[in-house]
Structure formats: C-alpha cells, structure tokens
C-alpha cells in the first residue's frame, strides 16, 4: 500500500498544496519533504492523520493549538468582507497491493467573523476505484474498516511517526493500543470476530430452540450454561477494563516520575547548555571570519577576472618573445652598439674587428627589441603573471572549499542553535515545587490504583476459573440430556459442530498472536542491533503479552527508561519495521524529522536501514536543512523519487518540486 497523492486546502499554513508521490523507475520509493522548522512539515503529517482518523495526532500541544483553517485566509476574510466561510479539506489517494485505489477526503466548513471561527459542517468521503469503475463508500463502518485494513488507527504512530515525539513511543499509554493494532495487522481480529459471532449464534439461535423443545431439566441446565457463559464473558471484559486502567495508571505514574525525577540530570543539562553557548560563540566567530574571507576572495577575483585578458595576453607576449629569442637574456643591447661604434672587442680589446663579426653583431642587435634592463624586468614579471594565472585556474577549487567550509559552519551553527533551543525549552519546563509536590501525591494515588487493579484482575481470574469449572459440569450435563433426546439430536450436533469450529479459531488466534509477538521481538532486536553503531551494548529485547517493552543491557538490566534519545529513535524504527515485516503488511513509513535525535555516529546506519526498507514499502521523510547534512545527502541524493521544498512566505507554505 502506498500514498500516491495528497491534496490540502486551508489546513493551517498549508493553503494550497498538492504533492504527487510518483515513483521514478530505477529509483527507490523514497520521497523527501525539505523545509525549515515551522514551515509545515509536521502539519503535513497532521493533515494526513486528520484526513484518515479525524484527529491531529502530531500536535505539540493539543490544548494550545490554533484552529485548523489557515490563519492568513481567516484574516483576509476579516479585513475584506468581515465575515465569510472557509472550507478546509485534505484528500489522500492510496494505491493498494491489489492495484485498487481509494481516495479519502475529509472536509470541514468554518464560519468566520470578527470574534471567532466556528465549525459549521463536516464530511468524510471515501471513493473506491477497482480499475474500471468508481464507487462511493457511504457506510461509516465500512469506511472505518477500509482505513483499519490498511492503516489501523491504533498503531498509526508506527506508520506516521514523529522523530521529535519519540519519548512517548514506548510509554504504557502508547502501548495500550498496540495489541489491538497487532490483531488487525495479523488478521487475528478476523478469527476473533468469527469466533465471537459463532458464540452469539449459539446463544441467540440454537440455545432458544433447546429451551423451547427440551424438558424442564434440560431447559434449566441450558439456562445455567447460558448464564455461566455470560458471566465468563462479563468477567473477561472486566479483566480488559482493569488491565486498561492499570496501563493508564502506569502511564500516569511514568508522567509523575518524570516530573519528580526530571531534575536529576539538571546539573549535566546546565553544563551542556553552557557548552552549547560557547560552541555557538566560536561558530559565530568562525562564520564571521569565513564571511570576511569570502569578501576578500570576491574582491580579489573580481580584479583578477577584470584583468584576466590583459594578464593573459601580456604573459603570452613575453613567453612568445622569449621563445623566439627576442629578449636579451645575457647580451646587452648598448654593449653591442658600443662594439659597432668602436669596432673593438670588449673582452680581449682587439681592434678592427672583421666584417663577419660586425655583421654577426648587427644581426644580433636587429633581433633584440628591448634593452637588457627592460628584458630583466619582463623576465621578473613572468613568475608573477604565472602565479596570477595559476590563481585564476584555482578559482573553482578555492571557491568550493571556501563555500563548503561556510556551509558546514552554518549547518553546524543551525544544528547547535536548535540543540540550544531544546535545552532552553527543557530548562524552562522544569517544574516548580508545587508541581513536584502534586506529582508526588498523584503518583501515590495512581500507584494505589495499580495495586487495586492487580488485585481485581487476580480476583476476576479466580472467578473465571470457578465459572469455567461450573460451565464444564453444566455443559456435560446439558450434552447428556441432549443426547438422550432424539428430537434435539440435530441441534446437539450443530452445537458440537459450532463449538469445534470455535475451539479451532481460539487456538489459531492464540498461536498467531504468540508467534507474531515472538517474531516481532526477535526481529526488533536484530534490526535494533544492526542500527546501533556501538556493538554489544544490548543483549535482548523482550515484549510481553501486553506488548510492554523491556530492553536489556549486557548485564541483564532493563534499560529502556535510560536509553538515549537516539537509541529510542532507533528502537522505535526497529519495532516499526519488525511489526510491518512480521505482519506481511508493508504499509508505508512516514517519518517526520527522522534524524533530529540521531547522533552523527548512528545516522549512516539509520539512513541505510531506511533505504533498505524502501525495497518493500514507500518511505516519506522530512528534513530541516541542518538535518539534511552532507552525509545524509550523499546517501539519499541518487536514491529518492521525489523531493519537495517547502517554503514559508507571507504566512503560507508554498511547495516547490526539486
């Protein structure tokens, strides 16, 4: 399954955006969105989740976020007509493995006036194309089923994941939904659905017949069987509720612990903050110096290029004259003139030189066009001119180096400034004493709740065991009574048949889920260790039946909570890829700012793994200029099918294909 096209209108800063994720032949199914921070990369991801699920899953803060319609359009209405309507829509076209296309389109209309923006209508359309015809899917359940078939909402964070919000990736809260998602991906949900319906059929269709046609004893026994089955079902539902409450309470305890212990690493973070400030100061100095060098370079080469023709022709002239022996290297023109006048040799003082010697000297004199002094100056000029010409020939090399250095410094500066910003945000978010006291109190309450839930689960499990034992006895009695009744023989056979189908379905469900979990566990660890730059740091990954994660170091300690941000990103990616591999559902992978938290050492492995992932699925990545470093660019530049540059102008994001 892949996304082939996304169209967005008036969704936050994305006023009018259409992106076609066409795969280019010979290239990977890899697509890049490139933009500065705040331009709309994450909102592009939000637009997708809003369209599919009606929720924006990737907002930094759900409570303080602005209304959806594009702010500039709202302001335009307010300043021109005062009031008006604005339609927001996001349309996503997907192509499935069976070459069927679906288009999902969510539309909301808002009323705008001077005080508020109010939602007045909303709509969700799904269109199905099977290659020859187009059919609208109107039924809401069917619409939801189609989305869940390809991109289940419960685990949507494992397809559309935000590199900046991965702290929550393995939290108890997040993993509550994973189990349901796995059931959808493995189709264990199909098995459960059939099994549950067969149960319902037994109760609604076959059981009433027994009560209608059977003896009093049989009727009573069947009633007991029915009541016990219902009690077991009810208790199973209760276990689910208690477990969910427990997970939620565990998530709250985690949150409280973060507030309480969040200040543990404060001295280290303050030290890092100082180091980052110092680094920025040095980088700014380097940047200024490079800028000066660039100005000098530009001035120098401006002059050199202006005089290039003169320098070049002057140098050629001298070399030509020298080559033809027209420049006096050792013979002095004035000396030759003296010899001709005095007809005397200046070396041996012989007078009356012969005519042949005079003629030779006259020929020499004709060849020499300048005096020895001038010749000496011209000779001295040659190396200078040579060096100028050489300098000019090095223009490209010098320019590339100078601008390369400048770009590297600027990128490092931007990335350091981003890190500083994050550190500052963290320092600003350190809770005050009241919040810590409240967190301690809440932690105690939630811990008590966890204990209660554990107790309730244990009691409920015991109840189920008792009910099941009673049910076994009642069912045996019922079956015996049924067997003795000729007229109910056919119904008994049907019940036995349905029960035997049900036990096959239940066994298969359990096996599929267990095998899937073990396989995901093994693959996650394998991919994770392949991704890591440091070897042997971790010994295994364990995923329990509730899909809670444990990551063990080589000493056998669970270290998930103390994994670095980079390691968490790598583990999240490993889990996502393992999940998709095992479920044989090669859904797409959309990663917002994938390398934001990944250090330079791990980036190469990370990008190579993502490239490998594109062999079987579509991958869409977003980058800031600082993240799209030379190293990342070198790995991706000849591989991607499309790259879009998002630019923010006048409050609106514009998209340009590169």
């Amino acid at each position: 399954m892949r996304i082939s096209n996304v169209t967005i209108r008036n969704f936050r800063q994305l006023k009018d955006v259409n992106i076609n994720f066409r795969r280019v032949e010979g290239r990977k199914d890899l697509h890049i969105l490139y933009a500065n921070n705040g331009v709309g990369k994450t909102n592009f991801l939000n637009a997708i989740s809003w369209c599919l699920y009606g929720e924006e899953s990737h907002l930094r803060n759900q409570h303080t976020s602005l209304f959806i319609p594009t702010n500039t359009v709202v302001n335009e209405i307010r300043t021109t007509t005062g009031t008006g309507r604005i339609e927001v829509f996001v349309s996503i076209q997907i192509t499935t493995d069976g070459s069927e296309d679906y288009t999902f389109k969510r539309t909301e209309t808002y009323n705008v006036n001077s005080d508020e923006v109010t939602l007045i209508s909303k709509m969700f359309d799904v269109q199905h194309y099977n290659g020859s015809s187009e059919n609208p899917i109107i039924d809401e359940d069917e619409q939801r089923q189609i989305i869940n078939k390809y991109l289940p909402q419960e685990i949507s964070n494992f397809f559309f994941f935000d590199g900046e919000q991965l702290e929550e990736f393995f939290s108890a809260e997040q993993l509550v939904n994973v189990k349901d998602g796995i059931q959808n991906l493995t189709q264990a949900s199909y098995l459960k659905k059939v099994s549950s319906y067969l149960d319902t059929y037994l109760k609604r269709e076959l059981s009433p017949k027994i009560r209608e046609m059977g003896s009093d004893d049989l009727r009573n026994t069947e009633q007991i069987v029915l009541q016990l089955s219902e009690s077991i079902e009810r208790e199973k539902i209760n276990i689910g509720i208690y477990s969910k409450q427990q997970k939620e309470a565990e998530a709250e305890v985690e949150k409280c612990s973060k507030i309480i212990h969040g200040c543990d690493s404060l001295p280290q973070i303050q030290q890092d903050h100082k180091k980052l400030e110092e680094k920025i100061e040095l980088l700014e100095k380097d940047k200024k110096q490079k800028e000066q060098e660039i100005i000098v370079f530009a001035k120098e080469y401006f002059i050199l290029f202006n005089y290039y023709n003169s320098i070049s022709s002057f140098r050629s002239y001298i070399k030509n004259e020298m080559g033809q022996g027209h420049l006096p290297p050792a013979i002095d023109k004035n000396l030759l003139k003296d010899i001709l006048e005095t007809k005397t040799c200046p070396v041996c003082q012989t007078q009356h030189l012969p005519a042949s010697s005079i003629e030779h000297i006259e020929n020499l004199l004709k060849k020499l066009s300048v005096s020895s002094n001038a010749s000496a100056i011209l000779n001295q000029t040659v190396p200078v001119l040579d060096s100028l010409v050489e300098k000019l020939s090095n223009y490209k090399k010098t320019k590339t180096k100078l601008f390369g250095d400048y770009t590297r410094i600027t990128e490092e500066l931007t990335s350091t400034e981003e890190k500083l910003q994050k550190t500052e945000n963290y320092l600003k978010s350190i809770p005050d004493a009241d919040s810590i006291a409240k967190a301690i109190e809440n932690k105690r309450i939630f811990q008590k709740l966890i204990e209660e839930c554990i107790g309730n689960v244990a009691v409920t499990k015991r109840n189920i065991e008792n009910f099941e034992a009673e049910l076994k006895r009642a069912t045996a009695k019922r079956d015996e009574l049924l067997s003795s009744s000729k007229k109910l023989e056919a119904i008994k056979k049907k019940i036995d048949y349905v029960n035997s189908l049900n036990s096959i379905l239940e066994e298969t469900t359990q096996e599929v889920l267990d095998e899937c979990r073990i396989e995901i566990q093994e693959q996650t660890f394998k991919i994770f260790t392949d991704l890591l730059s440091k070897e042997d740091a971790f010994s295994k990954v364990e995923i329990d039946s509730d899909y809670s994660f444990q990551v063990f170091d080589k000493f056998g300690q669970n270290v998930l909570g103390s994994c670095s941000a980079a390691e968490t990103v790598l583990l999240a990616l490993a889990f996502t890829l393992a999940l998709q591999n095992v479920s044989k559902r090669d859904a797409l992978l959309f990663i917002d700012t994938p390398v934001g938290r990944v250090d330079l050492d791990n980036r190469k492995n990370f990008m190579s793994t993502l490239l490998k992932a594109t062999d079987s699925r579509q991958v869409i990545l977003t980058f800031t200029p600082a993240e799209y470093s030379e190293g990342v660019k070198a790995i991706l530049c000849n591989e991607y099918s499309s790259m879009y540059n998002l630019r923010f102008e006048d409050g609106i994001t514009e998209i340009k294909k590169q």
Partner: protein
Amino acid sequence: MAINKKIIDKIKQKTGTETDKYLAIIELLKTVDDGKQLKKPIEKMLKLFDSI
C-alpha cells in the same frame, strides 16, 4: 486483501481431514474480510451441515 497464509495453513493443519470445517472457517473469514455480515453464511453453513 487475501487471508493471511499463516492463518490458512494453521486452520488446514487443525482441521486435518475434516475438509468441511476447513472450508466453513475460510468462508467465514473471507466474509469478514469483505466487510459483510456473518449471519447468512453461518446459516448456510449449518444447512449444509444438516445435509451431510
């Protein structure tokens, strides 16, 4: 979308020579996959069972 091969193999293995059970379960799974209601196929299955 087709039914997961792993599921098909497991059901085949568990039903063994009872082909009618295998076919019945696969039919019901396909019904779920198509997003259709299960009531009619179950009734059809049990009618077939009556005739066996």
